[in-house]
């Protein structure tokens, strides 16, 4: 948090960054772009770094809570006929685990990292639509709290993270538990969609002059493509959850076969989102890997163009796979064959990416620091998950192991392998940028090996449990099934994995206070975020860098060339053209505002009210409209009048 004084508003309006230099310029810009100190000022912040930090911390909090639910489930399953939790609590636990991991951690963490890093990497001063960004965070936080407070009040959803009808419908789920799930979706998807649009526009219009399409860092490309997947996938689940609420609340018949509706319709809508969701979780993982590998291989990435095209191909193909989640619902054979083929097809661009990364390491001089260890863990775990994925793409195998622990093992290998391993590496990599301090390398190695060994001990045996017929989502099993030893092994692995995370959190907490001072570029990396201070000043850069190369800091060793002429009297940034990043506008960037928080509270109250009465939508409309008007109405600041 910056310690900026109240913003000076008596400056000459045309003061430019060319009129000042050195510390005078830095201080001036830091005051203009800073977040104030009081409570209201902090709640009003629109700095992408402040909001990005909040997003990242909140997503990790939910990761931790989701992990706790997993540990309770593992303890329950460690022995046959165990009595730690009963079936009702167990149903809530696996629903909370899946919903938290997918909606409160999986999607938000990639966007959270993007909110912090993309503006720095493209060389701008704030994200596009910074107030929308603040709003999205408050909506996300509200949705997460809503789910977890409901759980603590014993009205946590108990219908699984995909909440299939008819189980989640009005007939089989009386009470409010399924509504809590459905409305949590509305909160989190609204915030996810808002961030996706911000990222897309930041990448298209706010890149530093000279950052042509082929100079965009791969990290940014991955999160850019990811944002497009979000834009086209998330409306499907919002529609599905809205239809579910309508069926439950006002008696529509969309999913009721007795009145012309259809239960499978829910599955189609859900998985039209749900499969791209897997890639929404995986593409940020590739973004982290593509940033970490060149830095630690000490060479540029091999196959930049192939990697970009693979990302785009993955984005498109991810929309053609959803039916492979529905192979056992009795679809026409031709459809099943098509989706088998497309499920195998997507292995091609993903395989291509892995080969490019390996080639980069092969030809480089790898420096084996903790971030690179996690990348290697990612290779191993993700590829193993990919291989069991190829098996599941085949209809006969899928039919045999559907809803067994084999599937549980598979998707934990791809999701934890594809997202969490790269993410932990990414935190080690960017922690010095976020905080100015390096994390402990010694604890980092403990962290890696505990997570890697714990993960494999926990999840590999589940393949075998699944092949032995153990179904998902059972709160216990009889000793005669013979699953007990494998389940005990999985529980032991889960405890080791959990201890690895405790080491990680310990490392974060300790390094925050005692870590080595990092300096702007501790790893000698090549992308623009490392040209900013650590942690970055509120304005990110005193002067906007001029980009001449894909790895600007490696190409311009004598110091980056810059573009000048932006205001030093109010918040202003440069808007550039989509393809060539030619400067087009100097545009004012919105100053802090409390209205996004007010709007988020009004929206949240409306969402929560609407699970009790449809009239809440009508009551909620005037406060929402008032908050939005307050948000957009000009206040006479220099930014407004620019």
């Amino acid at each position: 948090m910056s310690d900026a004084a109240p913003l000076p508003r008596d400056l000459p309006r045309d003061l430019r960054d060319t009129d000042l230099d050195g510390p005078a310029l830095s201080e001036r810009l830091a005051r203009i772009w800073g977040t104030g100190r009081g409570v209201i000022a902090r709640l009003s912040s629109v700095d992408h770094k402040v909001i990005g930090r909040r997003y990242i911390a909140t997503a990790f909090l939910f990761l931790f809570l989701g992990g706790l639910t997993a540990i309770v489930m593992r303890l329950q399953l460690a022995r046959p006929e165990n009595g730690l939790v009963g079936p009702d609590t167990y149903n809530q636990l696996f629903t909370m685990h899946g919903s938290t991991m997918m909606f409160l951690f999986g999607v938000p963490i990639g966007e959270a990292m993007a909110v912090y890093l993309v503006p720095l990497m493209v060389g701008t001063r704030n994200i596009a639509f910074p107030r929308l960004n603040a709003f999205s965070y408050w909506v996300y936080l509200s949705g997460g709290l809503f789910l977890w407070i409901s759980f603590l009040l014993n009205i946590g959803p108990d219908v699984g993270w995909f909440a299939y009808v008819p189980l989640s419908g009005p007939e089989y789920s009386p009470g409010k538990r399924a509504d809590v799930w459905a409305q949590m979706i509305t909160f989190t998807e609204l915030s996810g969609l808002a961030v996706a649009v911000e990222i897309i526009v930041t990448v298209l219009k706010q890149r530093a002059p000279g950052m042509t399409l082929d100079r965009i860092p791969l990290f940014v490309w991955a999160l850019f493509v990811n944002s497009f997947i979000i834009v086209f996938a998330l409306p499907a689940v919002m529609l599905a959850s809205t239809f579910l609420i309508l069926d439950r609340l006002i008696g529509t018949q969309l999913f009721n076969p007795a009145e012309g509706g259809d239960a499978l319709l829910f599955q189609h809508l859900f998985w039209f989102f749900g499969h791209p969701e897997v890639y929404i979780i995986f593409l940020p993982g590739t973004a982290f890997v593509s940033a970490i590998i060149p830095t630690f291989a000490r060479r540029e990435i091999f196959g930049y163009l192939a990697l970009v095209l693979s990302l785009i191909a993955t984005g498109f193909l991810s929309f053609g796979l959803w039916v492979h989640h529905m192979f056992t619902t009795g679809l026409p054979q031709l459809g099943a064959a098509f989706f088998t083929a497309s499920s195998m097809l997507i292995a091609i661009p993903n395989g291509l990416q892995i080969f490019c990364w390996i080639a980069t390491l092969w030809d480089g001089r790898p420096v084996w620091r903790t971030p690179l260890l996690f990348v290697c863990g990612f290779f191993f775990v993700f590829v193993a998950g990919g291989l069991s994925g190829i098996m599941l793409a085949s209809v006969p195998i899928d039919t045999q192991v559907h809803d067994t622990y084999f599937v549980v093992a598979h998707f934990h290998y791809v999701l934890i392998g594809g997202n969490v391993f790269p993410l932990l590496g990414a935190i080690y990599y960017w922690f010095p940028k976020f905080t100015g301090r390096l994390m402990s390398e010694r604890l980092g190695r403990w962290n890696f090996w505990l997570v890697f060994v714990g993960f494999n001990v926990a999840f590999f045996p589940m393949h075998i449990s699944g092949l032995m017929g153990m179904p998902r989502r059972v709160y216990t099993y009889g000793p005669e099934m013979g699953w007990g030893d494998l389940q005990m092994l999985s529980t032991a692995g889960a405890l080791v994995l959990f201890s690895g995370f405790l080491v990680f959190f310990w490392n974060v907490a300790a390094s925050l206070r005692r870590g080595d001072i990092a300096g702007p570029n501790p790893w000698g990396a090549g992308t623009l975020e490392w040209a900013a201070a650590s942690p970055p000043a509120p304005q990110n850069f005193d002067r906007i860098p001029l980009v001449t190369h894909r790895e600007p800091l490696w190409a311009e060793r004598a110091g980056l060339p810059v573009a000048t002429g932006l205001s030093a009297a109010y918040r202003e940034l440069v808007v550039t053209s989509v393809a060539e990043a030619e400067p087009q506008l100097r545009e004012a960037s919105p100053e802090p505002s409390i209205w996004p928080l007010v709007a988020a509270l009004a929206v949240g109250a409306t969402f929560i009210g609407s699970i009790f009465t449809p009239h809440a939508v009508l009551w909620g409309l005037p406060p929402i409209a008032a908050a939005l008007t307050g948000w957009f109405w000009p206040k006479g600041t220099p930014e407004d009048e620019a």
Partner: protein
Amino acid sequence: MNAPVTETRPSGADEQRNAYDLSRLPTYGFGAKSPMWWGTLGFFAIEGMGFALALGTYLYLLQLNPSWPLAPAPPDHWAGTLNTVLLLASLWPNRVADRNARRQDLGRVRRDLIVMSLVGLASVTLRLYEFTGLGVSWDQNAYGSITWVLLALHLTHLVTDVGDTLVLAALMFTRHATGKRFSDVGDNAFYWYFVVLSWLPIYLAVYWLPRW
């Protein structure tokens, strides 16, 4: 690796080379120059996807049921047709508003925004009337549900744009009606195109597919 391998200077170093002058650039722009235009386009994509999936649901339910509509008669289309004509006709004043905004002609922009506010209010009123002619309740069967859902989904977009137009019209009568606000009028006009164009497939689905 605490000692940097690559020596790079953080921004703010005094001796940075000045290579590019941004000071002569305009401070706002219209159309594809403006980030807000691209943001609006992003929301078209999101909402368009919502419409497409809702229409997909309609077609899915239609092919699933042996007869369609699941009601004695198709909906009365006259209010909907009138609304369609009104929306299509409004494309012209909308275009005029966009053009006058680009010319930064405040007098005409005020007039155009009032016209567009009235058009929007009329369209919302007609839409509310449309619900009365559907001949099926939302909770009667899946046909009634999806028909109501489609009309209501589009209604939310109508209401959003009308609200936005009213606030913007009020704004243009205050001292804030300068510079970038004209670009906002352009973006508001851009959104109206989406509201009108997204209506056409819904109109065909709700009123004419049951007659097919």
